[in-house]
């Protein structure tokens, strides 16, 4: 009997409300008839409900309060209404954005074009102004980003923002200076010449390795240790090696938008993975053997984006 009561207990409230299905109502009623404890429970709950319905005092306020409230609300609405031109403009822009989003949502929900247009008549000039300004800003932005198309194949980007923040000069055996760009976050204030990675308590540095075929394969090392840093083994510790070269010949055809670095300099992704010296060299050799266009590369640089070692972001050379 106790088990049955336990099962019924949670339904008694619904039973009183009459929100049970017919089958459940019959089952609960049948049990209640045979169980004094549940009968008392039902009776008590009904009495409780009776008390609530008949003796609970619903709060209300005086008419004077409501009159005062209405006046106060009206005043607040008037106060909160934007008065300055830029405030009105901002408010209209926000309303427009919100309204457009809502209306598009409704439109896609119900496919009712009549719902699509519902804007405040008195604010129409501001909506138009907001829309025009938004379009103008978007157009200006696009103009600064996309200057021209080259044969309709490749998009060129302005070079000013893409200059390496730090450039190391490596003295070669033949006394020629080969610039090596260590690409840093251009927003970073750091100016250390030897790039390093701070992984908590340890500081890992890139070692300068001998240049092979114009490439440098940097190695991350902790001072006095040959261990690979744990941060470099993580999923967000990816090194990318790029070769930069003037676009020409067969290489051009293999470039993608990811390979465009500057207006006249391009990079081909060579390595993607943890650069641990020997492994990187092997990858490079394999890549080189597979890529016939490599022979046409006139200038080669190794580019190690440090951001990849500390943030789980997709490396996009265009944005650097």
């Amino acid at each position, binding site marked *: 009997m106790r088990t049955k009561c336990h099962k019924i207990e949670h339904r*008694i409230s619904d039973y009183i409300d009459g929100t049970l299905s017919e089958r459940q109502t019959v089952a609960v009623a049948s049990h209640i008839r045979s169980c004094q404890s549940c009968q008392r429970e039902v009776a008590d709950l009904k009495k409780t409900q009776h*008390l609530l319905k008949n*003796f*609970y*005092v619903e709060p209300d*306020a005086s008419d004077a309060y409501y009159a005062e409230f209405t006046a106060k*609300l009206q005043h607040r*609405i008037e106060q909160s209404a934007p008065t300055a031109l830029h405030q009105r403009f901002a408010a209209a822009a926000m309303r427009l954005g919100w309204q457009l989003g809502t209306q598009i949502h409704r439109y896609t929900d119900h496919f009712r074009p009549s719902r699509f247009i519902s*804007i405040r008549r008195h604010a129409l000039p501001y909506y138009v102004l907001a829309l025009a300004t938004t379009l103008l800003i978007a157009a200006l932005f696009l103009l600064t980003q996309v200057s021209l198309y080259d044969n309709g194949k490749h998009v060129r980007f302005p070079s000013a923002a893409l200059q390496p923040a730090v450039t190391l000069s490596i003295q070669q055996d033949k006394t020629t200076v080969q610039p090596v760009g260590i690409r840093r976050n251009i927003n970073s204030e750091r100016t250390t010449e030897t790039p390093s990675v701070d992984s908590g308590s340890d500081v890992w540095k890139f070692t300068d390795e001998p240049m092979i075929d114009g490439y440098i394969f940097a190695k991350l090392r902790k001072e006095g240790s040959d261990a690979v840093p744990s941060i470099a083994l993580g999923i967000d510790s990816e090194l990318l090696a790029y070769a930069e070269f003037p676009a020409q010949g067969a290489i051009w055809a293999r470039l993608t938008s990811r390979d465009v670095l500057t207006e006249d300099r391009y990079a081909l992704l060579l390595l993607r993975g943890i650069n641990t010296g020997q492994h990187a060299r092997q990858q490079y050799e394999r890549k080189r053997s597979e890529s016939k266009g490599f022979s046409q590369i006139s200038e080669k640089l190794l580019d190690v984006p440090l951001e990849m070692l500390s943030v789980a972001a997709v490396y996009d050379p265009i944005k650097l």
Partner: protein
Amino acid sequence: MDRTEALLIADLCEGDETALAPLVERYKRMVYRLAVQITKNHADADDVMQETFIKVYRSIHTFRRDAAFETWLYRITVNEALNFVKRRERQRESTIETTPEGEYEVSTRYRAQLASDPHTHAEKAELRQYVTEAVNSLPLKHRTVVILHEFEGLTHAEIASILNCSEGTVRSRLHYARKKLRTLLKPYMEASAI
């Protein structure tokens, strides 16, 4: 001219601010009642009421007209009031120790009087006060459900929609709230045998 509710809402959507006043007039008592029951305080209810109508004014264009305006207004009011109470509780916690939510706060004076002479409490005025105190002593979540169901007459589904929870949760809260109320009101039930 008496405008219908749908017309008022349409006008308000189109920026006619004069449409707000009739809506306020129509629903002010409902909003106040709900706000004061949840916040248990006139001053707080006044704030909630203002925020509610300001939100109605600013967000009327988000109201889906295929739904009932009253339910939408209930949702705004309840959420404003609940947020208000939560903010207030946080502020209190940072300053003074308070009785934790869920503790019953029905005055001991009433309990003592009930035990000594229940017939005295048959006086309706005092009974009303006792029942009201019992409801007010419920934890916030339970009290809200009781108010919406028992006094506002909303269905489980409507309450679930307003509180953004499942109907099962509403049923469960209502069940436990009633049990607590039964316990609180038991002395009176036994004494007066309604």
